[in-house]
């Protein structure tokens, strides 16, 4: 489990070559997952056979590792089996079958969590913060056993950013470009040209890490701080967060919602799907073709979908403007929910919106044109 300890065990400078060899050595006990080249500066997080396949210089990945390998797009939760004499429900549901709905003849199997051990390398600071956000949802008062199992069996090796993407604004919300979270990772890497500055954070990583390297002292940490400062200067996109909650509260009927929704938003939900902190899901039942088993699974769902907030006799977010506002407000306002912003500034919703909707521009419009 990552993030449970706050002590900094040790800091070393390790040649990149030696570090990657160490990663390969983990493969006998762990699935190795990391960024693989996709195109341009884009990577895709995937399981790799060797560290040679890693593209550590990537700028961004469409889907965050947290929502691929910890909280899965789709997850089977239960299997219900109807035996010979029980009636599976069949449409139309109002027609009663023979013999009553005696669920005694239905067995319920809980799908056991996947306990495979995995290491995810190259997780950018924004995505580490996004994992900490998902922890609030899935490790809260009610714990999700699948998420919990993966979280406990996953070693997270974060990598401080060396490229600022055109839509990145993590520095505005304190989620990057260098990692400052108290937990959420086991190892933190900073690119020092031919070496990595390796900061070991968890006991598990400490026990696994056999490399000596050179000890990193005050000079190296100063060098790291300079690198961070240089990175801070490279952001082209920013978000002024001061007083955002009031700005939202006062502008719920601002024309920007209606205009953006009507002129641009397709309700396609791309923004939600690529968002590393969007946690919403749907629960669905799927009947097997022979009508003997039902699988209850969950899958990502999106507040941009028209049915998302629909109830009998009404829909709380019938208009597209209301749904777009819910998405943006959940990222930039509504901090009463978890005490933190819902955005980590990764900019994915901007990058992948087919019509170029930009939540930082919406926020700016709310601030300046009211």
């Amino acid at each position, binding site marked *: 489990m990552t993030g449970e300890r706050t002590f900094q065990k040790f800091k070393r400078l390790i040649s990149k070559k030696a570090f990657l060899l160490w990663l390969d050595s983990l493969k006998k006990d762990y699935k190795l997952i990391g960024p693989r080249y996709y195109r341009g500066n884009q990577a895709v997080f995937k399981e790799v056979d060797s560290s040679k396949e890693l593209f550590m210089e990537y700028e961004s990945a469409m889907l965050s590792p947290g929502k691929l390998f910890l909280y899965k797009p789709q997850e089977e939760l239960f299997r219900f089996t109807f035996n010979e004499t029980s009636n599976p429900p069949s449409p139309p549901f109002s027609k009663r079958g023979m013999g*009553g*709905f005696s669920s005694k003849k239905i067995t319920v199997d809980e799908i056991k*969590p996947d306990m495979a051990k995995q290491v995810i390398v190259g997780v950018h600071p924004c995505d580490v913060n996004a994992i900490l956000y998902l922890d609030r949802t899935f490790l*809260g008062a*009610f714990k999700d056993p699948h998420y*919990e199992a993966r979280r406990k069996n996953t070693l997270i090796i974060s990598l401080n950013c060396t490229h600022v993407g055109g839509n990145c604004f993590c520095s505005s919300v304190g989620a990057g470009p260098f990692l400052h979270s108290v937990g959420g990772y086991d190892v933190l890497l900073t690119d020092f040209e031919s070496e990595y500055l390796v900061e070991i954070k968890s006991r598990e990583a400490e026990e696994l890490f056999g490399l000596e390297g050179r000890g990193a002292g005050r000079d190296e940490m100063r060098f790291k701080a300079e690198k961070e400062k240089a990175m801070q200067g490279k952001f082209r996109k920013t978000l002024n967060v001061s007083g955002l909650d009031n700005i939202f509260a006062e502008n719920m009927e601002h024309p920007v919602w209606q205009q953006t929704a009507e002129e641009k938003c397709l309700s396609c939900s791309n923004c939600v799907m690529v968002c590393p902190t969007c946690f919403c*899901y749907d*629960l669905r039942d799927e009947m097997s073709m022979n009508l003997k088993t039902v699988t209850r699974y969950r899958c990502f769902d999106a507040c941009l979908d028209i049915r998302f907030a629909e109830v009998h006799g009404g829909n709380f977010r019938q208009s597209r403007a209301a749904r777009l*506002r819910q998405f943006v407000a959940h990222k930039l306002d509504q901090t009463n929910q978890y005490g933190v912003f819902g955005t980590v500034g990764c900019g994915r919703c901007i990058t992948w919106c087919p019509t170029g909707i930009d939540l930082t521009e919406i926020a700016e419009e709310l601030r300046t044109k009211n």
Partner: protein
Amino acid sequence: MSHELSTMNPLKPLRAKVDDVKIEAEGVKTYTLSTEFPFLAEPGQFNMIGYPGVGEAPISLSAIVNDGSFKHTIKSVGRVTDFLKDFKKGDELFFRGPYGRSWPVKKAEKKDVLIIAGGVGLAPLRPVIQIVLKRREAFGEVSLIYGARNEKNMLFMDEFKIWEKDISLYITVDEVSDVSKSPHPPFTKGGRGGINIGLVTDLIDGMKIKPERAIAFVCGPEIMMRFICRGLIMHGMSQSSLYVSLERRMKCGIAQCGHCQHSGLFVCQDGPVFSYKEVCGLPDGVL
């Protein structure tokens, strides 16, 4: 280093046996259920009720839990609720819960209690009425103000006679379909103890309320709750002495699936019962 897991899946449904089914009103039935597990719940809480292959829906407890036996009063309006309407004694269904924040009944002690409901909204308030009847001396004046489209849509009418002995009943319908066939004779017209024609809000306008010692529990369509709360505030009641129970789409009931989110609140966990102060004026609601 293998890590032990601390949890069983909180979404796992449990079996409940249908011990009794009672027709309550048009399209509404009350199911008395029991389960092999110990079951306790507070008034205002809900269960997710469902069946494999059909799905789940949030349904309030419509009575105080009696030695593990619990009740749900369900109106069939969609996938799950339509499926349940054919269930008979001896059948089994699945549930999980209870979830959510309950009515602050303790806070209502020594106060004048206004219980205000519209339609099926009386179901989650019946446990409150039952507690009041059980410990009548703990509360001040207690009134039930209940409205429905017509008397065919009215819940728990056969219990009104008993309730009336200890609390004041104000009943109203939008229209009377056929008073003579009403299962609750005699329905006199107007005022306390009889049936009125008009809106719940009209009844409230005519009531004498001592705002400093009153507390209100309100459940019904959101638009109705809006007018009731505003009406009570006109009577001098404060926002924090008004409680409402909100309905939102719910899939998980455990603050994970996000469907019930209302601004930053999870209605399933932070509600469904809220003080009016907490939810008044929030976007995407009408309160």
